[in-house]
C-alpha cells in the first residue's frame, strides 16, 4: 500500500486529506498522478497543474521518482512559509 497525502489549496480542491492506493502497477509518482487523474475532471485538473510539487517519504522529488509499498507520497502547491 502507498499512502498519499494532500496539502493546502490542493487538499481543499480535492476535498481530501489522504488516501491509500494499492502499490502494484504504480512504479513512479507520475503513475500515481495518472491513476488519480482518472477519478474526475477536478482531480485531472488539480494534479496536472504545472506548479504541482511532490514528495516521497518527506523528500521533494520529481514526477519520475520511483514509489514502492510503504511509501508516503505527498502532493502540494508551491510553498509559502517564512
Amino acid at each position, binding site marked *: 500500500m502507498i499512502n498519499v*497525502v494532500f*496539502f*493546502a*489549496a490542493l487538499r*481543499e480542491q480535492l476535498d481530501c486529506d489522504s488516501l491509500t492506493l494499492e502499490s502494484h502497477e504504480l512504479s513512479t509518482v507520475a503513475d500515481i498522478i495518472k491513476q488519480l487523474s482518472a477519478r474526475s475532471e477536478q482531480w485531472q485538473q488539480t494534479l496536472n497543474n504545472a*506548479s504541482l510539487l511532490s*514528495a516521497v517519504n*518527506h*523528500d*521533494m522529488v520529481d514526477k519520475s521518482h520511483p514509489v514502492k509499498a510503504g511509501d508516503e507520497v*505527498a502532493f*502540494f*502547491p*508551491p*510553498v*509559502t*512559509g*517564512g
Partner: protein
Amino acid sequence: MTSEISIQHQDFALADEVALLEQDNATDGAVVTFTGRVRNNNNDTEVSTLTLEHYPGMTEKSLAKIIATAKERWDIGRVKVIHRIGALKVGEQIVFVGVTSKHRKDAFAANEFIMDYLKVQAPFWKKEQSDKGEQWLDAKHSDEAKAQQWS
C-alpha cells in the same frame, strides 16, 4: 542541547532564543537574527489574519537539511529555526532564524541562506484572511530566484 528546529503554535521570545544561542558560548562573537512577522498588507490587500499549515515530518526534515547545508558552507556555531503554525494576527511573529559564528560575515550569510531556502523548500502554506475574503497565497518567483543565487 535544545533542538535546532521548532514548529509550534505558541509565540516565542526573541531574547530567550538569543540567550540560548549565547549560553556557554564565549567563542562566537557574532549573532545574527531574522524575525518575520505578519504584515498588515500584501499587494494592497488589508490583511487581518494568516493561517499557517504545514506538512508534519517533512517540515522538520527539510529544515534539518537546510541547516546541515549551511553548516557545511559556512563556519557557524549554533543555529535555531522556529516557525509558527495556526492562525496569526497582524504584527505577530511567524518565523525566527538565529545563527552564531566567530565571523559576522558567516553569521549573516548562513542566516539569509536558511531563510531563502526555508521560503522555497520547507512545506508551509499561508492562507490569508483579508478585506477581500480568504485565499491561499501564491508563491513568489522572486523567492525562487533568490534561493537559486546561492547555488
